[in-house]
Each structure stands twice: as C-alpha cells, then as structure tokens.
C-alpha cells in the first residue's frame, strides 16, 4: 500500500526527517512512535502530500506521490494534529464540503454521511456550528472529514491530542472501528495508545526510523524477556514470595517493584521470564498460600522498549568517531 524509500525533509538547512525507508501493507495499522519534535508530523504530512520531500521516493498504491500527488490525494484521508475545521460552518455543512472537495457526488455523499455520523458519533451535533463544539467533538468531526470519502489510506496525526481520559477511550474505540476498513497510519507520543491501537510500530528518533516491528518483536529483540507485574498479599514476608517466584520454570529474574496503594502486607515484584509464565506464577503463589492481588504483563513494557531504543541510539552516537 505504501512504500517510502530514503525519504528526507529539510527545512532550510536543518534536517527534520530522514532518510527513512519503510513499507506498509494494505489493511495494516501502523504507529509512528517518538518523542515530540522527532519528525512524526513531518513524515505524516509528506505521506498526506501536504509537504513535498526534499529527497527520496514515496509510492502509495503504486502511484508516485511526488510526481502525481493529485492521484494519491484521492486515496487518502488526513487528520492533522489540529483538526482542519471551519468555525462558521455547521458539522453537516462541513462534512458535505469535505466530501465534495474530495470529489464525491451529492447523491453518494448523502448516502455516506449517515454512516460516517454513526461511526464517529457526530450525528447529534449535525446542526451545531463547529465553533460551539467541545474539543472531543472537534476531534471526532476531524476524523469524520478524513473518512467521508472512504479512503483506502487513513493518516491520523496524534488523534488523542488534547483529549481528556474519557474522550481518549472513545477515540480509541473509534480507531478500532476504523482499522476494519482502512489502512491506518497513526502517530503518537502516547505509548499505551499506540500500543493498543497498532499492529506494528515504527520508532522514530532524530528524524530516523530506529526500529520497526510489532510490540512483541521489539520486546524480544531489545529486552530479550517478557515482564510480569505481580502484587501479592504476603503471609510470610517478601523474601518467601520472591523465592517462590524464582522457583517457577522460565523465570529469569525477580525484582521488587514500587507499590501504589494496597494493604500493609502487600508486596509487588517485576518478574522477568523467557516466556508468558503468568499461569505458572499464579499457580505457584496460590499453592504456596499467598493471595494474588494483581498479576499482569508489565504496562511499562513499551515505555521500556522505547527508552532502551532511544538510549541505545544515544550511546551509538557517543561512540561515533568525531
């Protein structure tokens, strides 16, 4: 669906992106992960044909996006970080405008609008001027304009930017619905969001793709282990719990972890294992007479991967000859 080769962008003499090379298959949901200012938005704007690359090649569905951006634009929908909304228009008027400007005929547009309103839940504000909408609704209308013409490729730049936690959950549900119909490119510096929404991650740092793969692939490559967080209501002290955990087959390391809340006898550990040993750990603890309060894969996994990658790159840069 999308092939980027040696893509780079310079603003003046300053390199903002690249060179980056990657491929994205049809139907994939790919997340661009990186800190603020590493080139995520620049990359998405190039893919969306808003910006032209300074170097490199970009193909969308076999079409050269640099030579024929017009043809590529018919196939994509783009939600930039700030949704492009005209404040004086009502939501209904705006969606009609967005559809028409993407080349839709009026009868096709009238058939499509109810489906988009249902998917993005903007039907209830159809007659409201955009200027009166909350941030959450604005973001949803932004998604609605991006999918109004049912594009094959959907590009979303920080779709949960500025949303409150409840709105983030709603947006995440919307992203899951969109994955079923579109190839989705998503950027974020919000690790849990990108982890939950994407099939594959491309990690960017200083304008370059420093790693790509699924969360599991990146984890196996970089951490060489799976991590489990366990909280136990210890009846016989933390040492006994740690010993019990170490005795489980496949466990490589057990380390005390910080405990947020819980009872006075509660102790928390991070267990590093070669495989998913959650069932074995739970069984061993229960048989040893400990009450398991919480047992989960480490939520810090993606954060750890990301930090490892960025730090590894910084170390490499330090070791480069001057």
């Amino acid at each position, binding site marked *: 669906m999308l092939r980027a080769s040696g893509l780079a962008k310079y603003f003046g003499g300053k390199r903002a992106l690249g060179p980056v090379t990657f491929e994205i298959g049809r139907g994939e949901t790919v997340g661009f992960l990186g800190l603020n200012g590493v080139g995520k938005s620049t990359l998405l704007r190039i893919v969306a*044909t*808003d910006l032209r690359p300074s170097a490199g090649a970009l193909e969308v569905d076999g079409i050269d996006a640099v030579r024929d951006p017009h043809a590529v634009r018919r196939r994509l929908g783009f939600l930039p970080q700030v949704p492009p*909304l005209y404040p004086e228009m009502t939501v209904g008027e705006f969606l009609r405008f967005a559809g028409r400007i993407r080349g839709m005929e009026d009868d096709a547009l009238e058939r499509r609008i109810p489906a988009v309103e249902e998917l993005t839940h903007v039907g209830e504000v159809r007659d409201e001027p955009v200027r009166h909408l909350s941030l959450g609704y604005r973001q949803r209308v932004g998604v609605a304009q991006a999918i109004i013409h049912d594009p094959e490729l959907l590009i979303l730049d920080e779709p949960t930017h500025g949303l409150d936690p409840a709105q983030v959950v709603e947006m995440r549900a919307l992203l899951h619905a969109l994955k079923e119909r579109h190839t989705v490119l998503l950027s974020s510096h919000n690790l849990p969001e990108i982890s939950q929404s994407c099939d594959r991650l491309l990690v960017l740092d200083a304008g370059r793709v420093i790693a790509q793969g699924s969360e599991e692939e990146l984890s196996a490559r970089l951490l060489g282990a799976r991590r489990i967080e366990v909280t136990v209501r210890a009846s016989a002290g933390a040492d006994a719990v740690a010993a019990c955990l170490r005795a489980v087959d496949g466990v490589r390391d057990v380390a005390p972890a910080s405990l947020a809340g819980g009872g006075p006898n509660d102790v928390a550990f991070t267990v590093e294992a070669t495989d998913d040993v959650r069932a074995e750990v739970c069984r061993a603890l229960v048989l040893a007479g400990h009450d398991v309060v919480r047992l989960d894969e480490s939520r810090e996994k993606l954060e750890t991967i990301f930090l490892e990658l960025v730090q590894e790159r910084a170390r490499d840069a330090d070791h480069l000859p001057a």
Partner: protein
Amino acid sequence: MRATRIIFRRELAAYLASPMGWIVAATVLLLDGLLFYAQALGPAAGARLSADVLSRFFWTTSGLVAIAAVALSVRLIVEERQLDTLVLLKTSPVRDREVVLGKFLSAFAFLGGITVLTIYMPLLIMVNGKISIGQVAIGYLGLFLIGGATLAVGVFASSLTRHPLLAAATGAALTGALFLFWPLSYVLEPPLSHVFAGLSIHGRHFSGFQLGVLHLRDVVYYLATTFFFLLLSTKVLEAKRWE
C-alpha cells in the same frame, strides 16, 4: 472547475456570514454616498456638467473599491493558515490554482455586489443630467476591472504569510505602490516615466473608464495584472509545499 465552484460557494457563504464582509460593504457605501453628496449635491458642490460629476464619482469610487478589495482579499489564504484549514484543501484532490481561483472569484462576487449597490448615484445623475448608459457601463466595467486587479494583489499578499496584519500591510503597500506609480511618472524622466505610467493601476489606465472611453490596452492591463498576481499566488502556494 468543480473544485473552484465548491471553494467559491464556501468562501462566498463565509463572507455573508462574517461581520467583516458587511462592515467593509457598509463603510464603502457610506463613504461613497457621503463623497458623492459632497461632490454633486452638497452646498460646496457648485454647478458642474453631469459628465464631470460622473467622472468624479468613478474616480472616488475606484479608490474605495481598491481599498475594499484589499480589505476583503487579505483574509482569503492567511485565515486558512491561521485556522490550520489550508491543509484540508492541500491534501484533497484540488489543484492550487483551483484554490486560488475559487477564493478570488468569491471575493470578486462580493465586491461586485458592493459595487453594483452604488448604481443609485449614476442613476441620480442620469435622471437630473445628460449622461449615456454607455458611459455608466464603461465606468462600471473599469470599477470591476480595478477591483479584480487589486483583489488579486490582496490574494497574493495573503498567500505569503500566516499573519493577517502582515498580509494586510503587504497588500496595502503593493496596492499603494501601484497607485503611486502614476504621480511618480510625472516627476521622472523618460523612459522611466513611461514605465511607471504603464504600470500604474489608476491614473493612465483608469482615466478612460472614468470618462466613458473604452481602450483595449486598459482592459488588457487590468486582466494581465489580475492574471499575474493570481499566478504568483498559485506559485507561492506550490512553493510552500517545498519549504
């Protein structure tokens, strides 16, 4: 052309919905009415030939139309940049020239509406004096042409920046310079004086319309100026994708 039509309709609706459009229209019509009263009907007007009154009307109205054109056009692209909505047009299957043309035509239609509303003044002259419909028609053709040319200058100024004040200042400075070329041509020696007179947006090129005389060279000048600045605006939009 479909995209141009869609953008034209949206922009025209935006003018009609915004206080800015109505403020510009009201100010132009009020000032034009007051100036007409002072020149033709007021106590200081004196006795004049109706053709002279009509000529003065077109002279003052052309200045007001040019100011209104700059005021109306500088928002066209700069506002899209400020609201971050330009990206919607730039990532849609719409060519930059269609964006520029749609926006220009919407401003031209709105300005044209304001200009047409001044018709009661030539009609008053026609009722009370001796002027021909042809004189009035040629004068209005001149107003539309100078309006179009200054609108194009404003669109170009609007394409350059994302700061409305800077766009307004650039538009006003460019239009002012094009107006000043005419008096400047009087104080310069040939061949520079001919160059400045030829490039002047008022004076030499508008005087014919003012008197009801149609010169093809004046029509070509205004159309060429309009085309030139719209082309520049399109090129600026294209170039900004490479920035």
